[in-house]
């Protein structure tokens, strides 16, 4: 008899948590699942809706729909809990966007939004990238984030951090190499 791998055990464990929630247990199983997915779902909400308040609503509604649908729709043979949750979250995001009160005040082309993932795989990749970035040492992560999130040039980064330009160049190089390793460890699909 083969011993299940760690990812398989995690998938089975989460399926069991959902089974308990489906049976009406709104206590520990729900809290455990929430803790595992809170940050990722919240970030997905911000990414999809461009607003922290709407992202909070998305997280709440995703878990309410998880409970409502778990008994009749979730099938551990067909999808993992992770995939199921993101399918729900994507549907919640679509519903929130349809609401007149959720429409952005600016035309869509004027809103500075990151590229929108359009499949569950892309959603997972975007979460993996953020988590990989957060796993880097502070020095490496800082220069990459200033370049990526704020669009600063290396000279501007050096000035902002009070570092020699050569140090910024070296940190960026090692940071990118560490980032590649962190992405590979997490199973990033596009390497």
């Amino acid at each position: 008899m083969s011993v299940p791998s760690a990812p398989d055990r995690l998938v089975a464990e989460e399926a069991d948590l959902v089974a308990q929630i489906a049976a009406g247990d709104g206590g520990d199983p729900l809290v455990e699942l929430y803790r595992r997915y809170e940050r990722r779902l919240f970030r997905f909400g911000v990414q999809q809706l461009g607003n922290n308040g709407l992202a909070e609503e998305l997280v709440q509604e995703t878990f309410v729909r998880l409970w409502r649908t778990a008994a009749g729709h979730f099938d551990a043979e067909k999808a993992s809990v992770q995939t199921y949750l993101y399918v729900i979250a994507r549907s919640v995001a679509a519903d929130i966007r349809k609401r007149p009160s959720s429409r952005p005040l600016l035309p869509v082309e004027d809103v500075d939004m990151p590229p929108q993932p359009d499949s569950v795989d892309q959603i997972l990749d975007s979460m993996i990238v953020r988590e990989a970035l957060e796993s880097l040492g502070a020095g490496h992560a800082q220069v990459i984030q200033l370049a990526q999130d704020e669009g600063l040039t290396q000279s501007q980064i050096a000035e902002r951090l009070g570092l020699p330009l050569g140090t910024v160049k070296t940190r960026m190089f090692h940071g990118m190499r560490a980032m590649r390793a962190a992405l590979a460890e997490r199973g990033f699909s596009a390497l």
Partner: protein
Amino acid sequence: MNHALEHPDVAGWVLGVLDPADAAAFETHLGSCAECQAAVAEFEPVARGLRLAAPAAEPPADLQARTIAAVQHAIMAAGRPEQAPQTARRRWQLPWKSRFTPLFTAVAAAVVTAAAFIGVQLFAFAAPAVAATYVLSPQPGQAGSATATALEVAGGYEIKLTARDLPKLGPGEFFECWYADPASGHQDLITGGTFSGRDGTFTMWTAAEPGTFRVMEITEEKAGAGGQLGQVILRGTAQHVHDDD
């Protein structure tokens, strides 16, 4: 020395953040350097991945409590009968004037418990109605969170409180749940029961009507002390209050 380290600009070039002069110099070098071309191939998927990164937003500390309360409210609401027996509900109009003495509190708790027990026997087949839900947040300098649901039962309310990560108790200390009427300037205060677990779900009984005693507080108290003397750890206001007027 590693050739790529002699040309750390490969990372900045792939990310598009080299200063113009550095970018031009690197591009000239790149055309004839197989090692730097290999480094570009290594870093390009990383740069593409970075453009996909989810925002670095952090959820607020109380989102967990609000989400759990929303689900618990949905669970309770789904179990609610379409025609709840009106006769099972009784308003408690006792003249709450000030903080209860421990003796009166004990008597009140016993009365409520007994009444609730009788009510449960009489209406054993009716699912209790949700009177309110609470999300309790830590007060400044405090830790932990909790959610609670008040269920209407004959004779009062059954409170199911789920606490998470409450502070560690010292010897002789316990947690106490209070209900306060905000309209009274926090003078009308009723104790709702005590518990000693830092994590878990605790069931308590109260006569305090959520529509009036809208604020729930959890304090840390010491045995022998009367009234609410300890620090307020968590506080929350009743939500989804069901008013049967």
